[in-house]
């Protein structure tokens, strides 16, 4: 099995050859072995969105229960781990809030274990934690989840491969073309330089956009620690469909 030092050397070589400012991950990133057969080899074709592409799906209160935003109360008891609040805003590329749109998250428990059949990590399952959450953004584009800080976990990309702690986020914009699935990380993780998924984003400033900030003003005394993470979706809403803005 490949050693970490070989993976790390591959990552460094790709970064050294990359131009600064690539905003998105490489799809073709060999240090992430699973990408080898799953990346398109041709450049995506530019096209103007039309029809259904201009309209994101609509979600509302019939879709999401507000209780789904608290991952610490879902399973009849207190989950084990460090209780945290993750709060932020979902914005479009013009800085406008994405209002009343669906945010879905999933994550490992404090021990680094997912509630998933295929997770073979020999770490304990927490009977009081599913790691699944949903909410709708508010009128300011704001979202918030109360949860448990996830643990790092091993995977089989190479020998001694460990994922930095992360929360998976699924997001919708105002246009279907703004659809995004990504991962939020925690500041100062020592596993960052070793992780081929995080490092598939070759630009350091772009990578930083995936790291939440610790925010002491969000922490609650004797209760939880607060993290802030804003999400910016690609592009703005197409101008010719721009709704009249009656908000002040």
């Amino acid at each position, binding site marked *: 099995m490949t050693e970490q030092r070989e993976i790390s050397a591959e990552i460094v070589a790709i970064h050294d050859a990359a131009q600064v400012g690539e905003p*998105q991950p490489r799809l073709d990133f060999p240090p992430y072995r699973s990408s080898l057969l799953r990346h398109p080899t041709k450049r995506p074709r530019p096209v103007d*969105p039309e029809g259904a592409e201009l309209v994101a799906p609509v979600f509302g209160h019939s879709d999401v229960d507000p209780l789904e935003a608290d991952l610490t109360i879902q399973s009849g008891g207190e989950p084990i781990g460090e209780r945290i609040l993750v709060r932020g805003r979902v914005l479009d590329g013009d800085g406008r809030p994405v209002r009343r749109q669906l945010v879905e998250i999933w994550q490992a428990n404090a021990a680094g274990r997912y509630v998933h059949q295929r997770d073979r990590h020999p770490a304990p399952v927490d009977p009081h934690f599913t790691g699944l959450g949903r909410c709708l953004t508010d009128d300011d584009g704001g979202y918030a989840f109360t949860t448990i800080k996830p643990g790092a976990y091993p995977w089989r990309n190479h020998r001694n491969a460990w994922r930095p702690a992360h929360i*998976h986020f699924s997001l919708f914009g105002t246009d279907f073309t703004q659809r995004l699935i990504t991962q939020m990380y925690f500041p100062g993780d020592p596993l960052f330089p070793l992780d081929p998924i995080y490092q598939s984003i070759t630009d350091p400033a772009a990578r930083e956009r995936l790291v939440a900030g610790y925010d002491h003003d969000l922490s609650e005394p004797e209760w939880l620690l607060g993290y802030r993470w804003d999400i910016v979706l690609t592009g703005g809403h197409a101008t010719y469909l721009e709704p009249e803005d009656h908000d002040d």
Partner: protein
Amino acid sequence: MTEPATPGQTIGPFFHEALPYAQDRELVPPGSMGSIRLHGYVYDGAGLGAPDALVEIRQADPAGVVPRVEGSLHRPGAAFTGWGRSSTDRTGHYWFSTVEPAPVRPGGPAFFAVTVFARGLLNRLFTRVYLPEHAAGDPLLDRLDPAERAGLIARRDDDGGLRFDIHLQGDAETVFLTFPGHGG
């Protein structure tokens, strides 16, 4: 002012408890009046089905109107929402029960907008599934070579359904799309 976008990351292998939900792929009840099956396989570069992919569609209704109604997560009693989500099975197969979209503008194409996610795929991919009867005169299709063009047009099944395979890589690689503002 343009804010730099948050980068995407792979959906990973562990999304199955989080994203799929009851009737996620049933935009209309299977077998209901006017319903068709849109289905196919997601293939990797070795021609193997990807068992850990997720396909989403967004579409107009049969009158050419793109619905803006809630209810996708709790289908019973909800109106047609024009959005659905299907994870692939162990063979890489996905399916939707839906209705055929009509062109949104007269004489325009009729297509399903599609997003693809998978373990091993570091960012989402966009493509379109064109209806065979409404593919003429489309600016995107007209720019493609014949094989690429054929790859974006669904084939009619004997039962009237639509078959559309997604090839992430390889000789039959699907044409994927980038939209203004997407950057890299």
